[in-house]
């Protein structure tokens, strides 16, 4: 921003142009995200899906930047104020990395050393029809765990102490 625009009117026009620009950017990014989301439904290739998910995350971060920088005016604040907010948020880099790593490590360990956990991921259970569930709304809640119980016995409602639910 140049400071030559001391004129009130010019400053106003500049601010409105910025609002308009950011609105368009946010809408376009959201539409692109949705297009990618729809496209992803028809895909089977794991690496391609992963690449699309990465793109969606980048778009998400870009949207977050535009909201914080322009709608919340953080970009127009004094640098010290910006730093006291942004620097603590950098902790998220470590949070996300460490916790997701920990989660996937836990899964690998359980798959290696816990045969029951691994077996659960291979047993298919019968798919319930959503339409039917809607009609019998009251029963649906009790039916679903019961159906699971027949095949693998993870229901917590029926007393079966020898099989612990694995979450």
């Amino acid at each position, binding site marked *: 921003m140049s*400071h030559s625009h001391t004129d009130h009117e010019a400053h106003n026009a500049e601010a409105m142009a910025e*609002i308009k620009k950011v609105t368009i950017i946010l809408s376009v990014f*959201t539409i692109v*995200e949705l297009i990618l989301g729809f496209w992803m439904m028809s895909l089977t290739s794991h690496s391609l899906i992963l690449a699309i998910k990465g793109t969606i995350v980048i778009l998400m971060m870009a949207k977050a930047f535009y909201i914080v920088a322009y709608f*919340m005016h953080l970009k127009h604040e004094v640098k010290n104020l910006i730093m006291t907010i942004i620097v603590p948020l950098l902790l998220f880099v470590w949070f996300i990395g460490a916790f997701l790593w*920990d*989660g996937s490590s836990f899964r690998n360990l359980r798959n290696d050393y816990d045969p029951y956990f691994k077996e659960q991921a291979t047993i298919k259970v019968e798919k319930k029809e959503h339409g039917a569930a*809607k009609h019998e709304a009251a029963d649906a809640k009790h039916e679903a765990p019961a159906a699971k119980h027949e095949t693998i016995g993870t229901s917590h409602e029926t007393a079966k102490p020898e099989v612990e639910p694995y979450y």
Partner: protein
Amino acid sequence: MSTTTTASPNEAKLWGGGKSPFNSEYGKVMMWYFLMSDAFTFGAFLISYGTVRFSTNGWPNSNEVFRSFPFAPEGVHAPLVFVSIMTFILIVSSVTMVLAVHAGKNMDKQGVVRNMILTIIGGIAFLSCQAWEWNHLFHEGAWWGANPFLNADGTASSTNFTNFFFTITGFHGFHVFSGVVINIIMLIMTLMDKFEQRGHYLMIEKAGLYWHFVDLVWVFVFTIFYLL
């Protein structure tokens, strides 16, 4: 951009005492720090969701779960449609909030009132959409501790999915609700000429920061729950 140049003579004066070194009002700075702490709360929720998802072999397919919308004929499924409407409602209400803040800076009371009303309508519309979706999922048998959906590969799913979904969208919905209440209070104060008497509309700016934060969180919740 040029407002943040370091080592300028202005910088030394900022810290020379007698004025706010952040060149910002106290309440606004504190609102920023509150939002930062709130970001950590939401971050903790979303990261724990990610951790649990990464430590589980199967996970429900969001396109299977969130595929309904109001007034849809029986058997018609449209994943992502309803949630994209909700997303655009929140983006639009964010824009009207910016316009309200902008009008406030120009001491334009009519503009503030008009845009605050539009923002409140957007917030209520979003909450209505969320209420419909929660109600719909509840009647499908989903709730805290109950998950009628299977994993994407057809294996049995745990209740982690629904627990996280209702906790995080519920916490966000509660923020939207408080935002709407704050905005209504701001609208009443504007109509009572409170800000005209004070000579500034800084309260609208603070309410605006909160409202944008709600929109910001939805960007993450929407992406993580419905797209990834």
